């Protein structure tokens, strides 16, 4: 589903590359933690998958397509197959919960009828069935992250990318979010989650890919967080 072939990403300026000859393969339906210290290259790897960045050398494949050579006008189509969740939720404060979720469908031109059907279903899936009319600032952090996950999942993407999704949440709430991501993974969606949360990684055992100074230093099918930061 996601494949990096000797990918190096070098930002302008001196210093070592953010990613250095990284090769990895993530299959369809996998749940993968991307761990490593700050600056290890986790976010760069995720941005390469989203084609927000292009590798300096090497190739990135998503769903069988080499995306670094993809024409600009095809990028939106690629992103429709990828849902994204961030540590800071990134919800639109002037829209209700339902509107935030519907937004992801509106901008890709889904019909009103389809939106009216799919949005409540997705809100139910993330456990916010009765909170569609609330504004984001009326919700707790965990609930806001659920809205963000609903928005990321509403178009039923093949891949869900989560960048520190539990970073702003207390441990109990984080467990709820992890359960939700696990449920989404169960539907066949590939989940790639960058995290610093060793409690979560150790508790919900999945494949772990550890990056250090831009290199893959560990790739375990059923790993633990494995280092102290």
């Amino acid at each position, binding site marked *: 589903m996601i494949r990096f072939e000797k990918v190096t990403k070098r930002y302008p300026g001196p210093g070592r590359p953010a990613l250095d000859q990284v090769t990895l393969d993530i299959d369809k339906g996998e749940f993968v933690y991307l761990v490593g210290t700050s600056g290890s290259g986790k976010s760069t790897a995720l941005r390469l998958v989203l084609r927000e960045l292009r590798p300096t050398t090497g190739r990135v494949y998503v769903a069988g397509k080499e995306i670094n050579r993809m024409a*600009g006008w095809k990028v*939106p189509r690629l*992103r429709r197959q990828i849902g994204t969740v961030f540590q800071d939720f990134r919800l639109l404060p002037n829209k209700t919960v339902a509107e935030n979720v519907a*937004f992801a469908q509106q*901008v*890709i*031109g889904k019909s*009103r009828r389809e939106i009216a059907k799919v949005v409540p279903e997705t809100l139910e899936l993330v456990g916010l069935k009765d909170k569609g009319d609330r504004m984001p600032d009326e919700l707790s952090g965990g609930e806001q992250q659920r809205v963000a996950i609903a*928005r990321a999942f509403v178009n039923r993407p093949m891949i869900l990318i989560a960048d520190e999704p539990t970073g702003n949440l207390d441990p109990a709430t984080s467990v709820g979010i992890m359960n939700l991501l696990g449920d989404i993974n169960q539907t066949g969606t590939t989940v790639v989650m960058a995290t610093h949360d060793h409690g979560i990684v150790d508790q919900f055992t999945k494949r772990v890919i550890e990056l250090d100074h831009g290199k893959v230093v560990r790739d375990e099918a059923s790993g633990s967080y494995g280092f102290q930061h």
Partner: protein
Amino acid sequence: MQLRYVFTELRTGLRRNLSMHLAVILTLFVSLSLAGIGILVQREATVARDSLGDELKILVNLCTDDDPSHSPNCASGEVTADQQQRIEKEIEDSDEVASFTFQSKQEGYERAYEQAKRSNTQAAFEGPDPVVTVERWPAAYWVTLKTPERADGIISALEGLDGVSVIKDQRKALGQIFGIMTVLKYGSWIGAGFLLFAALLQVTNTIRLAALARRREIAIMRLVGASTLYIALPFLLEALVAAIVGVALAAGVLAAFQHWGVEQALSDHVEFLPWVDWNDYLQALFGLFPPGIVLLGPALTLIPTLLLTRKYVKV
């Protein structure tokens, strides 16, 4: 594509950036009005030149039977072929003349009739026994001078020739009129140019501010896979709305100028000149060259918007 969403965004955008949009509309309105007046003045110069000849030209009317000038040159009545040949040779040989054309009685009559119809004074040409007829209309030579300053030689040479009825030397009067028109035309175009440039800068600023205000939405739209066109559409529509309002206001001002300024005031006071009409007004609105304000307004707002949104909204 969800048009409802696009129009909601458009409404929000217009409201959010109201003062900037008003500034763009006002600047566009004034600059397009000036540009339109510039076009009308240019059309007026063309209309005047077509009927009166430009300041480089003199008109040599040849004698008709029973010539109204009662010039001694016309003692023998209608100009003869020999007389006309001598006149033509004199014009040909003059070093003050750049070129000349012969205008037959029929051509001259038709031209005058058209002109009269334009200024609504065609009564003399019509009816069962019209005052003006093809027979009574003089054939003429239109003589184009090399420079407007030098015409004395050719005028004095022709004045004494048999068959020459009247020489109309309109250099002074027309020179002044065309001078004023040129100043007006370039004045309004230069003014319009500065203001259009200001409008362009304002459009740029408006888009920059709008992109800043919407950066969160734009970031999310990009992430969920909205196309560049979809993201840019509210910006383009905002620019289009500003352009449409600006163009509509300018078209109103130009219509008022045409109605009260040209038709009610100028054409009443300055009767000897034919004036621009509603066709010329439409030309100022929809013309291609120079571009009318209906083209100019949207182009000035949409092109920078397209370029800037590509920069700010890049996927």
